[in-house]
């Protein structure tokens, strides 16, 4: 329920919240450092106390109990919430059984590399090199999966980089834990339930497996409670020597908070926030934070907020607490080796928080806390969390949409907008009940997922669609891998006589790629089951306690796997160009097209390129031909992925969001039939290629009319509006119109090219400039040059005319 008179909370400013102001300044002034605490503890445990005779679940339960009990309680600044992801102010967590070893070659240079350097001491380098890393070369998920499956083709294909990425080598994040359980029950009650269920079981093989799972859940959660107790003791210790009376009182309150939560049910807004934060820290020890998302915080926390407001908490105090939480969430940075930085760098942890929308009965769920959270977001302008706002045309109020647009204008890049009507329909199409579908949150970038009850690993696959196009053109070969026969050997495109034949070739290569990447994801999933069950996440996921199963083994209520497609608009435009110019109008032959792209459209092919680029038959326009090709491609991908089963018995869903991968994959890809030149970034997400969709309404109409029930893993439509012409009402009207036509999601950068060009040239002038990439937000200075270029050249629309501003 909304009771606020001023939805913008104009009286709440950073100047009136000096703690947040100082913490924000500290955040941007702090150097990111590698933290060796977690790999040290995991390695020590695995070398010594671990019992390999235990089941994988039990081993994991004991391990994470040890990890949490031995995690250093750090209270380093004046944040009101206790606990840190790492032992550093801003730390990089290393997961030795995932991809930590990838920075081994760079340990002695990583603190001095040009892009996103991480601090590390000599002692830490030596500890990693001599003590920690040597234990792991044969024990990582990637290598266990390789060995168990005989170094399969699907894994070798991934290592060629340009075809796809299967992210389970990094973690199984990309989900929303059930934080409602944490604040409604507390961990002791969950432990009690696990204990009761364990004691009710018999001695069958199945029951013994369940018992191990329940024991693992109890052990790991008891470790979390120990960590909170350690934080409490640390707060008391600091309070005892604190001379400032006010700070001493804060520390004593913090000690009390951590004595209570997350073990018990919180009583206050602050306790509830700290309970969620401590659990989030714990989940980060278990899995790398790649889009481990927060869910519907304004719904989960509202009862605590409302009670505290009744007790006298001010709006400013509520904003301050949310702000403290936001700064905590931003206390760690993902690990990225140099190659990763070069191709895909700049990404945060993509922790989505979801606001607004409807409740499980379909009524407007926007409340006062929604606006408090928006205010904290507006004031702090941080990369994380990635704020996602749900809007249901004609159910949620227009004034709410106006406020979302206002925050987007003021921050330049957040929140992003989801259409409840379409998202609920897309989830229902995947077998999610209506009530559960209405209770969806965004995961990571944009992926809708029923909150706290779905293990959907929505970003487990990132597939480069243009690699299938390449293989369709060259008989199963790819220009990057030269003469190697990668995909099925088929007739080269020059010998094809019809567009139908070319489409069939595309389907052959796409189908083969999908087979490979699904096999790989399933192999990696089984490797997780074997060596990396996740008892803490499982204990905080609806379904797992009922079934007595880990999430990685199918314990969640809903099980699916999400595959994100990279390069949609580039492929649609390429296929459409082949249809239009080669087969329909016969303006040139396939051989000429291939010569042109092999020559990167240079020399005699420049005229050809101009003709192709000038064609109105493009993704994001009124073109029927392009729309038909987009429908065909999206339909084929959906049908093929849905025909596959994941290792948990769930389905694969398809999405169109790209993080920074459209720039990375683009940098590795040659010229395309669409007129795109080699190495240029692909269009992001489900966004048209820059310069090819000149009219905003056509662009919105094109994307809105795509079948969103075949896009159940979400999409990111990335648009840029010229600030000077972006009034709140114009902005809101475009979102409303897009959603009424059926659009699923849209997000905006409200920034002009001139500012971005200046930020590229003088990054020191823009330390906190953040931008929407493709789903999430990032600091512009952290992005690699390809990605910066993509953001700069991304289509920018003038809302006064509704037309694209020409670049250059």
């Amino acid at each position, binding site marked *: 329920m909304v009771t606020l008179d001023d939805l913008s909370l104009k009286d709440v400013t950073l100047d009136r919240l000096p703690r947040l102001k100082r913490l924000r300044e500290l955040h941007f002034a702090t150097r990111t450092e590698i933290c060796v605490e977690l790999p040290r503890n995991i390695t020590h445990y695995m070398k010594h106390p671990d019992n390999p005779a235990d089941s994988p679940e039990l081993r994991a339960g004991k391990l994470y109990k040890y990890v949490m009990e031995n995690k250093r309680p750090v209270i380093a600044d004046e944040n009101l919430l206790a606990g840190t992801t790492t032992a550093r102010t801003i730390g990089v967590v290393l997961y030795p059984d995932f991809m930590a070893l990838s920075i*081994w070659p760079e340990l*002695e240079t990583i603190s001095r590399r040009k892009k996103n350097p991480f601090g590390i001491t000599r002692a830490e380098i030596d500890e990693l*090199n001599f003590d920690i890393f040597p234990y792991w070369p044969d024990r990582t998920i990637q290598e266990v999966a390789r060995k168990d499956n005989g170094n399969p083709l699907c894994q070798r294909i991934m290592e060629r*980089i340009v075809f796809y990425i299967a992210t389970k080598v990094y973690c199984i994040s990309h989900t929303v834990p059930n934080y409602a359980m944490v604040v409604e029950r507390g961990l002791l009650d969950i432990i009690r339930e696990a204990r009761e269920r364990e004691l009710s079981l018999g001695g069958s093989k199945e029951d013994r497996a369940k018992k191990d799972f329940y024991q693992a859940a109890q052990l790991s959660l008891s470790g979390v409670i120990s960590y909170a107790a350690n934080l409490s003791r640390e707060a008391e210790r600091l309070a005892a020597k604190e001379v400032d009376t006010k700070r001493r009182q804060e520390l004593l309150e913090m000690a009390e908070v951590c004595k209570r939560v997350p073990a018990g049910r919180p009583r206050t807004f602050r306790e509830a926030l700290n309970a969620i934060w401590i659990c989030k820290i714990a989940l980060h020890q278990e899995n790398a934070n790649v889009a481990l998302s927060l869910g519907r915080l304004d719904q989960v926390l509202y009862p605590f907020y409302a009670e505290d407001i009744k007790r006298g908490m001010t709006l400013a105090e509520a904003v301050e607490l949310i702000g403290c939480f936001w700064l905590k969430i931003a206390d760690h940075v993902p690990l990225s080796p140099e*190659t990763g930085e070069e*191709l895909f760098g700049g990404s945060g942890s993509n922790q989505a928080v979801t606001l607004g929308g409807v409740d499980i009965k379909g009524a407007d769920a926007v409340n006062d806390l929604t606006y408090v959270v928006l205010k904290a977001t507006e004031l702090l302008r941080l990369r994380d969390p990635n704020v996602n706002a749900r809007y249901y045309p004609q159910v949620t109020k227009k004034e709410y949409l106006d406020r979302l647009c206002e925050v987007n204008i003021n921050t330049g890049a957040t929140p992003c907008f989801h259409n409840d009507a379409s998202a609920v329909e897309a989830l229902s199409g995947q077998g999610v009940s209506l009530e559960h579908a209405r209770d969806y949150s965004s995961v990571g970038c944009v992926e809708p997922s029923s909150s706290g009850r779905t293990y959907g690993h929505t970003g487990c696959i990132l597939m480069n669609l243009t690699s299938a196009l390449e293989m369709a053109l060259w008989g199963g070969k790819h220009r990057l*891998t030269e003469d190697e026969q990668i995909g099925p050997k088929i007739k080269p495109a020059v010998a094809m006589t019809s567009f139908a034949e070319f489409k069939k070739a595309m389907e052959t290569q796409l189908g083969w790629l999908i087979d490979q990447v699904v096999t790989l994801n399933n192999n990696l999933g089984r490797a997780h089951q074997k060596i990396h069950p996740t008892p803490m996440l499982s204990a905080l996921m609806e379904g797992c306690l009922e079934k007595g199963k880990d999430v990685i083994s199918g314990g969640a209520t809903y099980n699916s796997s999400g595959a994100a497609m990279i390069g949609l608009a580039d492929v649609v435009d390429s296929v459409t160009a082949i249809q239009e110019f080669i087969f329909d109008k016969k303006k040139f032959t396939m051989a000429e097209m291939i010569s042109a792209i092999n020559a990167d459209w240079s020399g005699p092919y420049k005229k050809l390129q101009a003709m192709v680029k000038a064609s109105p038959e493009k993704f994001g326009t009124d073109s029927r031909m392009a729309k038909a090709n987009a429908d065909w491609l999206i339909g084929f991908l959906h049908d093929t992925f849905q025909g596959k089963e994941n290792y948990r018995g769930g389905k694969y869903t398809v999405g169109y969001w790209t993080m920074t991968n459209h720039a990375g994959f683009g940098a*590795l890809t040659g010229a395309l039939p669409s007129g795109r030149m080699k190495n240029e970034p692909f269009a992001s997400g489900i966004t048209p290629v820059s310069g090819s969709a000149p009219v905003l309404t056509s662009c919105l109409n094109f994307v809105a009319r795509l079948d969103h029930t075949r896009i159940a893993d979400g999409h990111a439509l990335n648009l840029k509006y010229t600030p000077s012409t972006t009034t709140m009402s114009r902005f809101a009207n475009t979102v409303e119109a897009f959603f009424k036509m059926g659009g699923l999601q849209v997000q905006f950068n409200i920034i002009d090219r001139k500012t971005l060009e200046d930020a590229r040239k003088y990054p020191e002038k823009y330390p906190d400039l953040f931008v929407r990439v493709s789903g999430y937000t990032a600091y512009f200075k952290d992005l690699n040059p390809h990605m910066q270029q993509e953001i700069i050249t991304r289509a920018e629309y003038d809302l006064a005319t509704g037309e694209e501003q020409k670049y250059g």
Partner: protein
Amino acid sequence: MFDIERLISGLSVDKALDRLGERFLKSLEDETAETFLEALLAFMKIKFMLDPAYRKNIEKFRGSYQFRSRDGGVAVLVKFEDGDMKIREKTSDDVNVTVSFKDGRALMNFLLSANRDILRGLLNNEVLVAGNLNYMYKFGFMANHLQLELTGNLP
């Protein structure tokens, strides 16, 4: 090609280290880096023999590496076992990791962090690694360390 005995015969321990270190550095400056692998492996081997701190990298370590040039001109098997490094000019499939490279410059670009051009390496399909990547990461550390030490750039 990998006759270290010949390279250091008649030299004192310090001189041998210096000689091979200089040779390694020189190979980095060479346009084609034709001798890079040979110079790297020779220097690595003598460092393991003479420098206990560096030898710590391969104590209790077992790992085998096949380095192979695409044109078939170079095929070197490197084995680490209990503090010892063995270099043989032969091919074997029974290794932890196989590295195929276009030329010495490509391999150098792949292995050493300093002045690396990652994109060029990928775009030119210069180096292919097959097998357990973690072994390659370890080798990468040992190779980078040598360069950083010789150039006075260790952190």
